[in-house]
């Protein structure tokens, strides 16, 4: 049935049809849920203000404790000692170097993990026999702390960057693959049926239906993969020092420990924490919010 003829008849003026149109339009506007989007400024203020207030309160409580209890500064340094350590690390440019090195390794390692984990996840999700064979192993690897691989990696690769990347991959790949698998598992079967009914080939089904439908699950797998990559990286950097391995945040942490510089240790821990929070806030959270909001998966309060 050619479409032109359909629309040609549609344009014939028919009072009953107009009546129906108005009725439907009225019902639509009664039933549709209006999206009450808040402004970007408001959203930023609502999102940023509470954690900053909490941070200020925590630092204030810490300082009050130092003033009142007067603990030994080499056991419990005050906020000013820690900020001092941070400032001196900054001025000697050790901080910048450490953050840059660690972020570069973490980011690159994460990207490699995505490139490896995604096809593995797809294969596992779509191929039953492979899943039965490899699934338990992958779940096991996800539970195994990837630090456990450090000694083996040192023996295999020596004190090189390869050791660090190996440990990152062992931490992140299982999370990413498992995230994709659970994302695919959670696709409502109805959507695949629609794909079949619409005549999608295997390839079209995978690219146009399965992958986009699995995106929320895949994305939370990516987030977890990043967390594992960052943790594994820190562990690897703390344990493996020397050789051709560069100066990362973990190395800096370990150096401060050797110097019994508790203020330096705490300062580095804070930096590691903040890098993690920053990556979450700047990269993952906006993508995730957009992803969920577009699909109507976000609770009204979180918009």
């Amino acid at each position, binding site marked *: 049935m050619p479409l032109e003829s359909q629309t040609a008849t549609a344009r014939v003026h028919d009072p009953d049809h107009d009546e129906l149109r108005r009725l439907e339009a009225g019902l639509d506007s009664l*039933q549709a849920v209006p*999206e009450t989007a808040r402004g970007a400024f408001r959203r930023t203020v609502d999102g940023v203000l509470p954690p900053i207030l909490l941070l200020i309160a925590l630092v204030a409580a810490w300082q009050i404790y130092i003033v009142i209890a007067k603990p030994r500064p080499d056991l419990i340094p005050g906020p000013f000692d820690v900020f001092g350590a941070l400032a001196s690390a900054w001025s000697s440019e050790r901080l910048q170097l450490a953050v840059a090195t660690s972020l570069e390794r973490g980011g690159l390692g994460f990207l490699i993990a995505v490139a490896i984990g995604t096809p593995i996840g797809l294969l596992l999700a779509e191929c039953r026999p492979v899943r039965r064979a490899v699934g338990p192993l992958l779940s096991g690897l996800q539970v195994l702390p990837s630090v456990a691989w450090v000694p083996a990696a040192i023996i295999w690769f020596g004190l090189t960057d390869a050791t660090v990347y190996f440990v990152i991959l062992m931490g992140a790949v299982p999370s990413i693959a498992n995230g994709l698998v659970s994302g695919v598992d959670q696709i409502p079967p109805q959507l695949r049926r629609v794909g079949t009914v619409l005549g999608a080939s295997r390839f079209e089904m995978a690219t146009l239906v399965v992958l986009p439908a699995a995106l929320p699950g895949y994305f939370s797998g990516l987030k977890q993969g990043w967390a594992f990559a960052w943790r594994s990286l820190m562990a690897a950097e703390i344990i493996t020092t020397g050789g051709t391995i560069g100066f990362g945040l973990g190395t800096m942490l370990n150096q401060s420990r050797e110097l019994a510089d508790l203020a330096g240790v705490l300062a580095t821990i804070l930096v590691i924490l903040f890098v993690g929070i920053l990556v979450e806030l700047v990269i993952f959270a906006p993508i995730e919010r957009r992803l969920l909001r577009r699909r109507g998966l976000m609770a009204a309060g979180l918009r």
Partner: protein
Amino acid sequence: MTSPARTSVVTAPVQTSETPVAGEEAAATDSGPVAITIDGLGKRYGTGPLVLEDINLSIEAGQFVCLLGASGCGKSTLLNIIAGLEKPTEGAVTVASGKAAVMFQDAALFPWLTAGRNVELALKLRGVPRKERRREALELLDLVNLADAAEKRPHELSGGMRQRVALARSLAQDRKVLLMDEPFAALDAITRDLLHEELERVWRQTGRTIVFVTHNVREAARLGQRILLMSSRPGRIVNEWTITDTGSRRIESPEVARLGDEITDQLRKEIRRNAA
């Protein structure tokens, strides 16, 4: 039960002051060729009991057929077999025009695409060139009065609007046969009533053959040109009514009520048979 008793109840033609011309056109397409042939169809899952038994049916092109039965009588299974989503255990189904378009109870729109893109995807899978998709999708959405909602995402639409997008998407497949599996069952009565009107209009305008599965007797009496009543366990077609009505009828009209009462009596008799 040996052979299904087939009575044909012909209701008096409703005087249609509304659209007599459209009605005659639809009546003219009735006598067309056969669109769906079902021959000795049987279905069982594994070694379980028979779900469908000895279904023989021939549906004319352009006909609006309602398949009516209690929950679990196998009417959705029958529809899935016609759609090619399930294989029959015995017998054969032939859809003259090839494959059929299907619409489900749940609109099952892709939540990551806008209403317009959902329709466009169906066009894309049909092989319509990229340049024409946008325009055709808008035309189809306009056919279900949703041209303004093309940029909206499924979660922003009401249930009735989603079903209309799903209808537009099924029409985008451009197949002569449209199979509908309780498409309005989850909607409120007001919306359902409007969608009946909408569907009837689209059917008259596009000349599709529609097989409409429902457990709602009034809905069947409101929409169908031909109503098939199915028994349960095993599912068979036990009775059918043909309505030689040229125009549209309202769900509140006495004709629909009378036919509905008659069908309900039969349906209850079928259900009572399962009590023992």
